[in-house]
């Protein structure tokens, strides 16, 4: 008995020693990770699929070649994981990547205010002046904290074939024209518009666009930074949406549909010809393509901007949009800034445009866009007098869920236009 016990204790001690040894080995490995170069830069982005994923890998490799002694560790993470978990945790722990995705509006603001981002205003002043107004959503108090690589506006992705079949010759330009088109599409047995209200934000975008129609540019630009939603136009946006929903433009069961997941998602319905339109950002071509039967962007897909709403105060040349950018961690080596400069260069931007993954943020790269829908979006962007950032991004991460939930409630018939404004005010009050 005694011997067994001693053996057992010995075995456990050995096991514990091994475990501890294993843990130590891990840490040791981490520390010596960048052995082959003098400097190691980590770069996190959100591209998990080609062509963009391999393009970023190429960019990293080219940068390594041009800068001997520098090693770039580039990793693509799923967008929401990256945005909501990985980056906040990395920043909070003080062990952040050197170059990472930075979302415009509220998110760059809170990261900059917490002191995690390097001020790029002076070190990248040439790049910033090349880009022009596109860089503004990544500024905080006049200082530049990140450089976008893509920026696009929102509009309707639609099925040209279904439009032709329904006898719609011109794309709708006003809300009444859109409603007329919906009727014609219903007559041929198609859901006019797909929306992924189960994910909340795709439904939220409907209200954002109506808010752009209802509110004057001045109101928008004042209300959002001040978080003051007392102007009646915010309630009017909900009323416009309420009236529109009453015409039943969406697919059956839209309340539970997801936006991008599977053939029954809103993107999937458009991809498979089961719905004629979807209101979505500039990234949607790839999304729809990935859900199409042959996994390529369908021939029938095209794009038109959000409709204007007659009798409202909003400027019809204002559009809603957003983009993705890269920022540099405050303690990152200078080479990280150099890397960002390379990523943002006109040459790399032209190659990005050619992949068809999105609209490049560099104005000089627009000529390299080949995808016909993206060309339409780039034109729409060029014609915009002002691009309002997605409202949830602009207001900040805390607002997204309460705001979008209140909007979906209204679309489900269990909330009022006033409830949406109240959700905004309550969230602002708790900041």
């Amino acid at each position, binding site marked *: 008995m005694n011997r067994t016990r001693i053996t057992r*204790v010995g075995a*456990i001690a050995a096991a*514990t020693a091994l475990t501890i040894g294993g843990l130590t080995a891990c840490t040791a490995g981490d520390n010596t990770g960048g052995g082959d170069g003098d400097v190691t830069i980590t770069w996190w982005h959100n591209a998990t699929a080609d062509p963009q994923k391999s393009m970023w890998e190429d960019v990293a490799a080219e940068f390594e070649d041009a800068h001997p002694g520098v090693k770039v560790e580039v990793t693509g993470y799923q967008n929401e994981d990256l945005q909501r978990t990985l980056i906040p945790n990395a920043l909070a722990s003080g062990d952040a990547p050197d170059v990472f995705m930075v979302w415009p509006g509220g998110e760059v603001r*809170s990261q900059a205010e917490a002191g995690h981002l390097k001020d790029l205003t002076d070190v990248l002043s040439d790049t910033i002046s090349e880009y022009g107004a596109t860089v503004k959503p990544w500024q905080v108090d006049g200082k530049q904290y990140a450089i976008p690589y893509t920026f696009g506006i929102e509009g309707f992705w639609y099925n040209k074939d279904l439009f032709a079949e329904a006898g719609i010759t011109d794309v709708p330009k006003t809300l009444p024209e859109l409603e007329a088109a919906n009727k014609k599409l219903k007559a041929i047995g198609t859901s006019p518009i797909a929306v992924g209200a*189960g994910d909340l934000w795709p439904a939220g975008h409907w209200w954002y666009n109506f808010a752009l129609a209802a509110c004057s540019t001045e109101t928008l630009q004042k209300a959002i930074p001040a978080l003051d939603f007392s102007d009646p136009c915010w309630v009017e946006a909900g009323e416009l949406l309420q009236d529109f929903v009453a015409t039943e433009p969406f697919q059956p069961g839209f309340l539970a549909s997801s936006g991008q997941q599977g053939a*029954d998602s809103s993107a999937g319905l458009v991809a498979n010809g*089961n719905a004629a339109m979807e209101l979505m950002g500039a990234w949607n071509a790839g999304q729809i393509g990935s859900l199409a039967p042959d996994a390529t962007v369908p021939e029938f897909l095209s794009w038109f901007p959000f409709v204007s709403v007659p009798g409202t105060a909003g400027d019809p040349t204002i559009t809603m949009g957003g983009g993705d950018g890269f920022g540099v961690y405050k303690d990152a080596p200078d080479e990280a800034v150099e890397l960002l400069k390379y990523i943002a260069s006109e040459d790399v931007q032209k190659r990005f445009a050619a992949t068809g993954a999105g609209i490049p943020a560099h104005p000089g790269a627009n000529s390299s866009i080949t995808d016909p829908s993206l060309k339409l979006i780039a034109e729409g962007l060029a014609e915009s007098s002002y691009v309002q950032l997605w409202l949830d991004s602009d207001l900040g*991460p805390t607002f997204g*869920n309460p705001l979008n939930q209140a909007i979906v409630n209204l679309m489900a018939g269990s909330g009022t236009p006033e409830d949406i404004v109240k959700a905004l005010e309550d969230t602002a009050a708790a*900041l």
Partner: protein
Amino acid sequence: MSTITQAGPAVTAGPAPETPARPRRDTRKWLEIALLAGPALVVFVGFVILPVILAAVYSFYNWNGLTALERFIGFDNYIRALSDPVFLKAIGNNATIAIASILIQGPLAILVALFLNRKMRGRTFVRAAIFVPYVLAEVIAGLSWKLLLSPRGGVNAVLENIGLGDLAQPWLANPDIALWVMFGILTWKYVGFAILLMLAGLQGVPQELSEAASIDGASWWQTQWNITIPLLGPTIRIWVFLSIIGSLQLFDMVWVTTKGGPIGATNTMAVYMIQYGQGQPGFGSAVAVILFLISLVIALVYQRYAMRRDLGTDKKNEGR
């Protein structure tokens, strides 16, 4: 009660009656305990106790997760959560699921277990088949159901093909029925576990008692009702406990299928915590603490009153 002697004998833990004579033995005993429990204890404190304490600390701050903890706001996060109708509805949904589980899954599981406990052909196969959903990964099961129950999904297609097209509907998108559809999925997923527990419990019910009863002229149903089910008590009580805790912490199935929608019809406390905690971990922590306290209070009350005998507070019984 006579049940106890049946399962009992193996439980008595070895060295208790020996009184350690020499202090050397004592030291060695403690060393052994430290070695055995030490690593687990370190992990437990580091990954369970510490996070709970930290969450409690965070919950008193208005904090976005990026800055230092500076803005102490007392109980404001708690007041905000508990006065939010969305959260109150989520608590209600958790309670509905917990109660419905006990009232519907429990009797169902006992019935099936009694049935499967009889000798018959293909028993092993049926037992295995019933347990399959429980073994299936939650996300896979959730996605499958999401696809099956979507407006253009398999369930509606089947209904239309058998002439019941009128019943076809967007199952998870209809706020009036979504919670019950969700409960159906959960029952499909978890009743196998309940059946397995009950079957295991039935193995501890002595055959002799039923034999004696049948000699006395009791019918099969009378035997089950008067003998088997009462003797199954400890198993039923532990299952009810597990079921309540599981219902309170329900997250993955809801997240995968509906994300708590439509309009909060299937929302639960854990889903609310993730959604509304975004960008404000302080508030999220307050919701987590509320969820923790509700679970803790229910667990303690239940253990105190319902499981007292099963947990060996009563000397005659063995441990769980």
